[in-house]
């Protein structure tokens, strides 16, 4: 296990104050904070070797290219991919999923086919498939969920039929924290000849994820949720699947030869990376992977499971508050959504902010789920490597104080 206090010292932002109070950052599902090594990586790039990659014959370009492709190798190893050619840089999870929707799906989904998702998908893994289904006259089907976000495998089995061409499923729900059994779901999907896309935005940063073990065809995730900068994301795809896919964006870098009338495509993965890439942020994501690897992803998972267990226990001491997601902390990520009938999440979130506590409130880009739960919004706390039980104590006290403020009109001391 790692020393959380030591980890906290690596994050400059954690020493800032909010309204003269220590910052308690519990909004990691929205974005994570950055260690000094990632920030330094960006500064070093721009101060020492900023240059465009791949095409230059001068030293700076070669250094930049080495670092950029090294980062790609690091990410490949981090998720257990066999080769770096399976790693396509994108902007974020949303762009990764859209890339699949606009290339692979356009060619492989036909009228009468089915795309299967779950009822707790983030909009980024729902809206693109709605569009594909409408464009191709295919059917979008939903694996139903229990109120804690869990799914029943025998129900899922019956929905993933021979008509299913794609199973697109979130591994860890950003709203409820539920961890889906994606390996078993992928097995079922591939047994009927369907391809499998996993939304790993909330899982890859928080637990060991191995694409070879999961046997998924696509995995999408974002750099900024795993200590990396904003603006860089990853689409992993099996090499043979990627080989068959048409390009997403066209132009420079992704071509081999171009005449006035025609063009041939570059090798993998550059075929899917048109134009000057996000060089600095890809390299910085490599630095983020180094940092997480030094902690060990098994340890990251243990730390968060302990925090979540503690949070669930402490939340039980708050009266008249609904807490969502599985009660078993091993079946969920470090994401806890809660709701009070008396105090709207936005009001509660504001009160917490005035106590230096950052949580998220709203529909969390899961509007259909909120409608299913009968709620306009929830409040959500989400944990990461630098959070502590002491911070959870302050969160719980803060929620109690906030509820008292609105119910009794008196701030608590």
């Amino acid at each position, binding site marked *: 296990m790692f020393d959380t206090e030591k980890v906290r010292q690596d994050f400059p932002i954690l020493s800032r104050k909010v*309204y*003269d*109070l220590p910052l308690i950052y519990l909004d990691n599902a929205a974005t994570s904070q950055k260690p000094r090594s990632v920030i330094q990586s960006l500064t070093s790039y721009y101060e020492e070797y900023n240059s465009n990659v791949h095409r230059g014959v001068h030293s700076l370009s070669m250094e930049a290219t080495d670092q950029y492709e090294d980062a790609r190798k690091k990410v490949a190893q981090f998720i257990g991919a066999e080769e770096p050619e399976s790693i396509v840089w994108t902007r974020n999870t949303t762009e990764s999923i859209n890339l699949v929707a606009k290339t692979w799906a356009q060619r492989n989904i036909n009228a009468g086919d089915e795309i299967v998702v779950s009822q707790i998908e983030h909009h980024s893994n729902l809206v693109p498939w709605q569009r594909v289904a409408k464009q191709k006259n295919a059917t979008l089907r939903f694996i139903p969920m229990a109120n804690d976000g869990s799914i029943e495998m025998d129900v899922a089995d019956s929905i993933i039929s021979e008509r299913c061409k794609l199973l697109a499923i979130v591994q860890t729900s950003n709203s409820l924290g539920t961890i889906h059994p994606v390996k078993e779901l992928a097995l079922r999907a591939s047994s009927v000849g369907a391809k499998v896309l996993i939304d790993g935005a909330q899982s890859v940063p928080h637990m060991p994820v191995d694409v070879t073990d999961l046997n998924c065809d696509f995995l999408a995730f974002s750099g900024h949720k795993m200590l990396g900068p904003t603006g860089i994301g990853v689409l992993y795809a099996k090499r043979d699947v990627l080989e068959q896919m048409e390009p997403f964006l066209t132009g420079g870098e992704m071509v081999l030869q171009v005449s006035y009338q025609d063009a041939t495509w570059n090798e993998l993965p550059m075929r899917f990376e048109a134009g000057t890439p996000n060089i600095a942020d890809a390299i910085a994501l490599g630095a983020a992977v180094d940092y997480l690897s030094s902690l060990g992803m098994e340890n990251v998972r243990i730390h968060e499971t302990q925090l979540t267990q503690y949070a669930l226990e402490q939340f039980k001491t708050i009266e008249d508050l609904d807490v969502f997601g599985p009660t078993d902390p091993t079946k969920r990520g470090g994401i806890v959504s809660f709701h009070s009938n008396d*105090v*709207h*999440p*936005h*009001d509660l979130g*504001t*009160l917490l902010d*005035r*106590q230096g506590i950052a949580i998220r*409130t*709203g*529909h969390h880009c899961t*509007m259909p789920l*909120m409608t299913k739960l009968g*709620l*306009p*919004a929830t409040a959500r706390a989400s944990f990461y490597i630098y959070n502590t039980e002491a911070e959870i104590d302050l969160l719980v*006290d*803060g929620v109690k*104080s906030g509820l008292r*403020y*609105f119910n009794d*009109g008196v*701030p*608590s*001391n």
Partner: protein
Amino acid sequence: MAFHQIDALYHKVILEHSTQPRNTAVLSTFHVETNGLNPFCGDETHIQILLDSRERVDKIGVQTNGCRINKASGSMLAEAIVGKSVSEIENLSVLFKRFIKSDLLLPHDVQVLGNLQNMEGVKNAPIRMKCVLLAWSTLDDGICGYRNP
């Protein structure tokens, strides 16, 4: 734990209006009916206005769902426009939006706002601007629909 400057945002007038909103009865007859929704947070506002023979607000019904700021805003809007003409409502709406966005107002215009000035704390919480303005944008839509049937 004292909450930093929270009483400026959740002024006691706002808390009172959000806990006991005024003019919430649903009207059976009305000249204006309009709905507003903020899908990002689920705030909802439903406004009905019955005008008298001089086109002044005779009765108003405002029902809101959502956060305290939205609820208070709907209630304070209802209180502010009773007895006002359609033109006066239009002017008040413009003034309130300018006030809440920190535009400079003449002293006379500030006086026209009356109790609505208690919403001043929202100026320092820009993220809650949509909450306070939902009722007013809903009202604007309703008045526009009345002017252009």
